[in-house]
């Protein structure tokens, strides 16, 4: 299976889009400092990727929730495959082309669109050729199965990182041994050595990053809540692209300070704040602007996203860097409710979130490509019902705009807001 390389890299286009947004922010005296830092971080990430081969660096493509801390510590340039597909959708509107290319490879529509898209993007030559493909079963069958096709298309070596489903001493040790094997694989293929001191430093920064995520989460409990609807997608991006990186910390600290000031001044992201929402899964990427707009129009604000922004308790230990990388995999918010067994603790956490964040209603974005998440729709609805929180479910696709229209989503949300109002 050979795919011709083309020069149509969309990476430079993503980078340019980030730079334009950044220049617009700089020209706006009211734009928060954190926005500038966020887009600079994005722009730098993609600049590094774009220039990697020219600078003789090794590019490792990897799936979501992959411990890219290890790549940074080895001076390997990471390429987050799903996130990059999302960026193409978000900034360039290139969904149709890449999804169509994925279909041409024989990937059926039931495979989640970011994975069909990333295979399509590789086949089009829209992404730089990776020197290695890294993938894992965290978080689903799609991530577990997406690596081999890319390896074959791009004729590159690959490593599959096997994440145990549950947690026990044996399973934790297994994951650590998998990480060790992966480091061995990368050292062999890239000719670079693991810099353990650098990994310790990255782990320390990651620990700080998690602390900042938690502080931001606490600030969002305030009434009115200071964090805009689009914000949580930025939080995801930070962790996905720049774990344990200084530019991520700079952004999060600036954001934390801005939110703290808003809380002190009792300023909300929407005014007046009428509906405090719990967001389950992710709204479509291409509707971020729309979500901001409808939020402002109706005073509706997402205050908590249990599947994505609620980190488990625990600290990372820089003196035990590899163990900490493994531990982080168990602490990420997505692990508890999306990947691991849905035990009582995970279910109770959902109820706790509703209460602690004084949630009026929940919106579940039922992404049709994410089967294991959607399997929780009724369960979560039943649980939230027990604490008198109504839940709206909207079928959607996170990158493919042909599934729902903006009007249809507006109608559903407005009906839901009416219901909340009547209560």
């Amino acid at each position, binding site marked *: 299976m050979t795919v011709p390389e083309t020069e149509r890299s969309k990476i430079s286009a993503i980078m340019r889009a980030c730079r334009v947004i950044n220049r617009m922010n700089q020209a706006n005296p009211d734009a928060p400092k954190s926005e500038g830092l966020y887009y600079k971080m994005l722009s730098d990430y993609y600049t590094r990727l774009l220039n990697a081969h020219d600078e003789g660096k090794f590019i490792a493509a990897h799936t979501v929730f992959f411990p890219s801390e290890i790549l940074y510590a080895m001076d390997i340039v990471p390429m987050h495959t799903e996130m990059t597909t999302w960026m193409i959708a978000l900034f360039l509107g290139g969904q149709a082309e890449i999804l169509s290319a994925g279909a041409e490879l*024989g990937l059926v529509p039931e495979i989640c669109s970011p994975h069909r898209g990333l295979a399509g993007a590789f086949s089009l030559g829209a992404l730089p050729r990776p020197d290695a493909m890294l993938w894992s079963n965290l978080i689903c069958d799609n991530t577990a199965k997406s690596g081999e096709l890319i390896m074959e298309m791009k004729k590159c070596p690959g490593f599959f990182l*096997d994440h145990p489903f549950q947690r026990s001493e044996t*399973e934790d040790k297994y994951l650590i041994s998998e990480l060790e094997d992966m480091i061995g694989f990368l050292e062999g293929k890239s000719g670079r050595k693991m810099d353990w001191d650098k990994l310790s430093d990255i782990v320390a920064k990651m620990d700080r990053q998690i602390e900042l995520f938690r502080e931001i989460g606490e600030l969002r409990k305030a009434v009115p809540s200071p964090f805009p609807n689009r914000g949580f997608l930025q939080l995801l991006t930070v962790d996905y692209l720049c774990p344990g990186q200084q530019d991520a910390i700079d952004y999060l600290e600036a954001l934390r300070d801005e939110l703290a000031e808003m809380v002190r001044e009792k300023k909300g992201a929407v005014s007046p704040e009428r509906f405090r929402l719990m967001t389950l899964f992710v709204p479509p990427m291409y509707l971020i602007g729309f979500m901001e707009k409808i939020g402002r129009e109706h005073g509706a604000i997402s205050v908590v996203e249990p599947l994505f922004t609620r980190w488990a308790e625990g600290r990372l230990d820089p003196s035990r860097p590899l163990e900490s990388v493994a531990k982080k995999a168990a602490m990420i918010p997505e692990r508890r409710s999306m990947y691991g*067994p849905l035990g009582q603790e995970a279910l109770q956490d959902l109820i706790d979130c509703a209460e602690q964040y004084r949630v009026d209603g929940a919106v579940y974005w039922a992404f049709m490509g994410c*089967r294991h998440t959607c*399997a929780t729709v*009724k*369960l979560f609805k039943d649980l939230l019902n027990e604490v008198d929180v109504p839940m709206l479910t909207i079928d959607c696709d996170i990158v493919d705009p042909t599934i729902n229209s903006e009007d249809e989503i507006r109608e559903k949300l407005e009906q839901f807001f009416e219901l909340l109002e009547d209560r």
Partner: protein
Amino acid sequence: MVIDIKKSTSLPLKTLERFRQVNDTFPRTEQILEHKRQGNKVFGWLCTYVPEEIIHAAGILPVRVTGYSQEMELEDGNAYMYINNCSYSRSCLQMGLRGEYEFLDGMVAGSTCDGARRLLDLWQHYIKTPFHHILTIPRKYTEKAHALYYQQVVQFEESLEEFIGQQITDEQLHQSIDVYNRSRDLLKQLYELRKSDAPPVSGAETMEVLNASFRMPKELFNQWLEQLLDELGKSSVAHEGRARLMVVGSVMNNPEFIRSIEALGGLVVTDELCTSTRYWSDPVVLEEGQDPVGAISKRYLNNFPCARMVPSDERFNRILNLIKDFKVNGVISQIIRYCVPYAHDLPLLIDRLKGVGVPVLALDVEYGTSGSGQIQTRVQAFLEMLEARKR
């Protein structure tokens, strides 16, 4: 007596009727109800990475949880599991929610795929079978992966012992290994018959036998299968078809689907299904003095792999071997919608099969399908193409 596979709807195989009766009455079969009447326990299991011998050694009857035997409206399955989970898991869940498996004392699954693990989550929450267990199933075959899986099997054994209030002895495990290996050996003999140019048993009939194999006590199954093999040995029946086919893909246990292919003249001679070859293919190899749990765990992780495992070439190579051994002319891939592991593998599998000149018919199906009009049209066209290649 040469039988055109298109007309082979009623064959004089007496033992097959017994298997049919088990399947027709499942889940409330005479054997399961009798087992319960005697005060014994019955456990459901969900995928082929669950080590059945451990359950059997505990004196519990292991029964594979399957969904409806035909394509059904899945109102409850859809409501509780959402429409985008595979219809196999939705079908199983609906049967559970409607009390069809209320006799189960336990439910065991592996973290095989998203559908299986979520099915267990929801089963646990809404159906409340007394015992639940899920095993972490590694996706690799490395020594470390084997060590992890071994530990999972030991942990499962310990949980089971706690539940039943007694220890499972090595002697019991040895006996269970013998019973299950005998079953595997007999099923292998059944499949060997299908290698001939004109086999005495059809693909649909084989699937009926296989369905019964995980729905009744293995000891009785073995007796019946011995009788069936004896009958087949004496039978002058010889099935011939327009092409020799292999069925691959998602979980599938509806013999009507195979029958619909055979009704068009396609002779299904082998398969790569977790309800068929992948269920029975590898025996537990127990060396003298070896820990039986170690031997069992080694067999289950090394068995003919599901598409979940990495690297996929382990599975592809096994498929290629079967194609050669069974003289297969064409492959029918049937993938249940939203069965992602198999869907992801399909482009690579087609590529491998193209390399050996074997055409593939790729069907998107729902669990329980018996082969609708559209499927029949596509199978018919596929058979015509295979025939044209012969000329």
